[in-house]
């Protein structure tokens, strides 16, 4: 295979395995082991993207997860994924990728006109330009901005892949498998501690894969292989490759995202989940996350062909790629010299090393000079040329203080590659997420870990120790100490592997490289944040405009707010801010580091909790019958409840009206199994009920039922239901369907924390029973057919009584309670007999025309009777008195939960919203629920709102619409007219008592 920019040999790629891929529709060849970035560079492709705001041509800056520029849309259809870093995409056969933010294509991009308008796209541009009128924001400005400035496109199809999650504990989690991480993991694992080693790359080794240094007398690759083998022999080690530690949370909880199949052709491993989210709880964490090289900020520092020096070294050494034929290096530190030497060895002509420092005489510089490389001291690159690819750079001598250049004469050096190094930042992202404090290291000009707040150790470059021998030593120390703190020690300590490093000369910070014009003047742009197109001029402008806090600067300029979170830009930006304020850098400080370290796909966060597993559905034992008989379902909490049972050709309105008529005139049956049921036992059970309900319970006879309302301490209704005394010390409480768990929690809380002396036990029995509610004038006939031995006369089995009997051959509890206002029996059988009970009711009821009805009919019927539904007529601000239910609030009981609050000023107000009925003047008009109520029709806004409609239905029984509403002072407004101003008309309503049907309750007691 031949690539125009591939070395003859070397690197960790497999030259025998050619991989075909397409980029922007054109076919290319790469090698197994390439990333998309290295394969493109091997083919001489630098122009891969257009920038966010100005649509400037952009190339590949880095070789890792810090990449701000080379953002790629990978694949198409359901597999497509935007904003991926080309530097992290492992090449696979058939890979298809495309540039983003370019139209019609990356070579000819119409949006590049923005570059010409750059004088108006300054910091705070959106805030300044799109201020007025506000009404245009949603319609015009935002869509316009979103179209013009953008990243990739989200997939429109469902995600075809599976994802899963793991929850694990370990003694020591080591993040990063470079020299420090490898030695830390081995030192810890040798003790027998449970160790997890995670690294975001496809192979272990970290910086050694780039530098190729010698360790313990072995070439880097051999040493890495030896350590891997030693790790594998440890009893409790788990090595996770292609795994990014995305977040560091409280108490040493970290999330890792493992990419299991992203390096394979799409669909090639259907048996594997695509990604796995690891939730790790570690006793100790070792952060060996390495560092990121800083770009230098000089005029037009963003052209394709301008790269980080360390990245060029990685492409040369690890991937066998020469990103250019003739290179210039621009540096303020020694690390670029090592890069230059490796580049030269790979066949890249080194035109010059331009060093901003004066008198560079360290061992690395000596080696460079010995290799014949020209070193230009005290000089800087002040301009670059080249449209879609760098063609030359201009070099000028620097003034002594670095604040300007000397003279006007420039030296132009032709080159197609500029490798820059502005020093290195430790990757303190996870450390900072853990809330650890940072310290500014003046010598290395970077922030380093200072004071940890969680149980962690930093090692190596992450800790500000850049040289290989230091990394190896710190790794061993951190791993050993972490294991010891977790309770593990080794028989023999791990010796620190031997390595050597050249002594390095001090770095010279030069946060903005000067030129003949002031920053912001002329056409040159000094990019700080490559992803969000933030320049040094933007930072300075923001500072002048008063955005002098680094957090303000970030939000005003959007610096560091891209998907890269400013890995290559933050320190440069805050240093430039500090310079403009004449403040020391530590005083300016950093912005807050937040998870995730690199973007995490939503699929990994969701795991298997998608589709029907997103939220469990609860169904009753009768569910199958409902489905077979055409029920339309309604979600009530997690329950699937039949909403109505339409017959062929019936609308919902028709079906509900028919069901209502059946219950009022004949007999209907409702699946009421979902009602919450709490079994309450113990000698003090009645005392508990007395304290929790507003009414009295001590004198309730065994076999009798009572309705109760429960309030919070502030007097607001939280639930209602019927409770039955099954025995002297035994009650069965029912709750509303959606509040069952909440009420149980509420009772438990009081039992455990306020009244632990009460001898009461609570058990949820909601799912132990199936319940069918038979209601209507003919209900007694149906129950009689099912339980022929039971005396159903009103005297023997009155309203609000409970009987145990055999129903349809099954032992059952029958409660004569009603939510419809009709004669009604709720039959409870053990859950597994539920379907049988239901089918037997349908059989026995057939001669009487028994009609299954759903929750909608139940709602209409109860509203006709003025029965409230908690959560519909109440919203947490409604007292029993507001509901007109003073009768249920005991005057005799000394105390119960909520009682004291009924005499609070607020609950005694006469203008509280109170429950009333509303009858529209036009009886066919059904008010929308939630409609506001006003005293007058029309008027000028704002019109005082008296309250709102809580329930509203067509009442087939009454032959007209009915509504319930909460209205300020409503109980004193009976007979008055109020108004519901709707969008298209005003509806006049009479205020009535909230009982529309059978107010005497004759039918109920029949």
């Amino acid at each position, binding site marked *: 295979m031949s690539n125009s920019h591939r070395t003859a040999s070397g690197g960790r790629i497999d030259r025998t395995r050619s991989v075909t891929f397409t980029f922007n529709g054109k076919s290319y060849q790469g090698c197994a082991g390439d990333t998309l970035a290295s394969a493109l560079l091997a083919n001489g492709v630098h122009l891969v993207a257009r920038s966010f705001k100005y649509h400037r041509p952009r190339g590949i800056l880095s070789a890792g997860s810090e990449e701000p520029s080379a953002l790629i849309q990978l694949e198409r259809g359901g597999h497509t994924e935007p904003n991926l870093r080309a530097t992290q995409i492992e090449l696979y056969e058939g890979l298809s990728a495309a540039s983003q933010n370019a139209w019609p294509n990356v070579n000819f991009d119409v949006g590049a006109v923005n570059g010409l308008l750059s004088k108006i796209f300054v910091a705070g541009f959106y805030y300044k330009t799109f201020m007025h009128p506000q009404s245009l924001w949603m319609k015009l400005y935002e869509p316009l901005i979103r179209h013009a400035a953008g990243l990739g496109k989200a997939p429109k199809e469902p995600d075809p892949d599976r994802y899963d999650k793991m929850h694990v504990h370990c003694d020591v989690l080591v993040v990063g498998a470079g020299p420090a991480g490898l030695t830390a993991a081995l030192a810890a694992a040798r003790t027998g501690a449970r160790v997890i080693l995670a690294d975001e790359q496809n192979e272990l080794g970290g910086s050694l894969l780039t530098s190729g240094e010698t360790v313990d007398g072995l070439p880097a690759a051999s040493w890495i292989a030896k350590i891997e083998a030693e790790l594998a022999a440890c009893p409790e080690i788990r090595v996770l490759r292609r795994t990014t530690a995305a977040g560091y949370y409280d*108490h*040493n909880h970290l999330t890792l995202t493992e990419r299991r199949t992203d390096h394979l052709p799409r669909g090639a491993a259907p048996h594997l989940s695509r990604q796995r989210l690891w939730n790790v709880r570690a006793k100790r964490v070792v952060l060996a996350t390495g560092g990121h090289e800083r770009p230098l900020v000089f005029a037009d520092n963003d052209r394709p062909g301008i790269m980080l020096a360390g990245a060029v070294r990685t492409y040369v050494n690890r991937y066998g790629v020469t990103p250019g034929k003739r290179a210039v290096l621009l540096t303020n530190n020694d690390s670029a010299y090592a890069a230059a030497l490796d580049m030269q060895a790979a066949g890249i002509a080194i035109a010059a090393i331009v060093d901003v420092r004066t008198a560079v005489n360290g061992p690395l510089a000596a080696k460079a000079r010995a290799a014949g490389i020209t070193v230009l001291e005290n000089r800087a690159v002040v301009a670059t040329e080249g449209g879609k690819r760098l063609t030359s750079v201009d070099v000028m001598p620097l003034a002594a203080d670095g604040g300007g250049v000397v003279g006007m004469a420039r030296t132009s050096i032709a080159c197609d590659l500029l490798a820059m190094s502005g020093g290195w930042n430790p990757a303190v992202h996870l450390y900072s997420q853990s809330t650890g404090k940072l310290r500014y290291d003046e010598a290395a000009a970077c922030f380093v870990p200072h004071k940890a707040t969680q*149980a962690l150790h930093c090692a190596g470059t992450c800790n500000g120790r850049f040289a290989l021998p230091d990394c190896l030593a710190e790794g061993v120390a951190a791993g050993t100490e972490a294991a010891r703190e977790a309770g593990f020690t080794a028989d023999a300590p791990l010796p620190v592997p031997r390595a050597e490093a050249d002594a390095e000369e001090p770095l010279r910070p030069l946060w903005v490289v000067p030129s003949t014009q002031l920053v912001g003047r002329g056409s040159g742009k000094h990019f700080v944040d490559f992803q969000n197109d933030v320049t040094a001029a933007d930072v300075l402008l923001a500072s002048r405009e008063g955005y002098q806090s680094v957090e303000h600067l970030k939000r005003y300029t959007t610096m560091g707010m891209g998907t890269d979170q400013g890995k290559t830009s933050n320190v440069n930006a805050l240093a430039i801010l500090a310079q403009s304020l004449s403040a020391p850098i530590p005083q300016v400080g950093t912005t807050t580091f937040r998870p995730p370290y690199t973007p995490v796909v939503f699929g990994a966060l969701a795991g298997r909790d998608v589709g029907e597993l997103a939220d469990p559905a609860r169904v009753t034992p009768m569910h199958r019958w409902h489905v077979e008989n055409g029920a339309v379902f309604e979600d009530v909490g997690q329950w699937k409840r039949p909403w109505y049972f339409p017959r062929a050709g019936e609308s919902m309105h028709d079906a509900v009206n028919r069901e209502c008529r059946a219950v009022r005139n004949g007999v209907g049956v409702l699946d009421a199994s979902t009602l919450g049921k709490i079994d309450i036992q113990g000698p003090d059970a009645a005392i508990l009920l007395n304290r929790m309900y507003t009414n009295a319970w001590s004198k309730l006879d065994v076999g009798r039922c009572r309705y109760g309302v429960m309030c919070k301490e502030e007097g607001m209704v939280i639930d209602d239901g019927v409770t039955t005394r099954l025995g002297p010390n035994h009650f069965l409480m029912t709750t509303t369907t959606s509040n069952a768990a909440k009420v149980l929690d509420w009772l438990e809380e009081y039992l455990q924390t306020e009244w632990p002396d009460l001898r009461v036990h609570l058990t949820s029995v909601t799912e132990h029973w199936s319940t069918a509610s038979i209601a209507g004038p003919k209900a007694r006939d149906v129950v009689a057919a099912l339980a022929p031995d039971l005396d159903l006369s009103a005297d023997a089995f009155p309203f609000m009584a409970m009987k145990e009997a055999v129903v349809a051959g099954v032992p059952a509890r029958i409660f004569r309670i009603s939510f419809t206002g009709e004669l009604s029996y709720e039959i409870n059988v053990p859950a597994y007999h539920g379907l049988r009970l239901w089918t037997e009711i349908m059989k026995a009821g057939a001669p009487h025309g028994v009609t299954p009805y759903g929750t909608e009919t139940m709602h209409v019927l109860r509203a006709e009777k003025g029965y409230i539904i908690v959560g519909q007529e109440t919203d947490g601000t409604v007292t029993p008195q507001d509901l007109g239910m003073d009768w249920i609030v005991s005057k005799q009981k*000394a105390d119960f939960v909520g009682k004291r609050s009924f005499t609070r000023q607020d609950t005694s107000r006469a203008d509280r919203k109170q429950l009333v009925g509303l009858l529209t003047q036009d009886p066919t008009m059904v008010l929308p629920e939630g409609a506001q109520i006003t005293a007058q029709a029309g008027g000028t806004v704002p019109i005082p709102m008296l309250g709102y409609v809580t329930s509203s239905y067509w009442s087939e029984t009454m032959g007209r619409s009915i509504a319930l509403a909460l209205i300020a002072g409503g109980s004193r407004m009976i007979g008055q007219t109020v108004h519901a101003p709707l969008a298209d008309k005003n509806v006049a309503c009479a205020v009535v008592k909230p009982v529309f049907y059978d107010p005497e309750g004759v039918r109920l007691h029949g």
Partner: protein
Amino acid sequence: MLLIHCPWCGPRDEIEFAYGGEAHRVRPADPSALSDAEWADFLFLRANPKGVHRERWVHAHGCRRWFNVERHTVTHEILRVYPPGAAAEPDAAVAEAQPPQASQQGVRS
């Protein structure tokens, strides 16, 4: 996500628990004896310290038992876990309690 030591089940993830607000707010034995201001204080006013906070938690998805926790609201360090009804440490002792050394924080084994 905090790691909370349930006194009955041991260390478990925070998602298994529900928060119950400030601890040691005992419901008055006779609320009717309280003035409106005193009752309002019981109903609505809670401490929100920067520092050590005594608070209630319930192991909602575990043993379902309530207990008390002393937590530092800045570092989230959990200093002590104790059953309901047990007395709190004297305020002075809490105020003097220093967060443990960095290497000890976060994990209590």
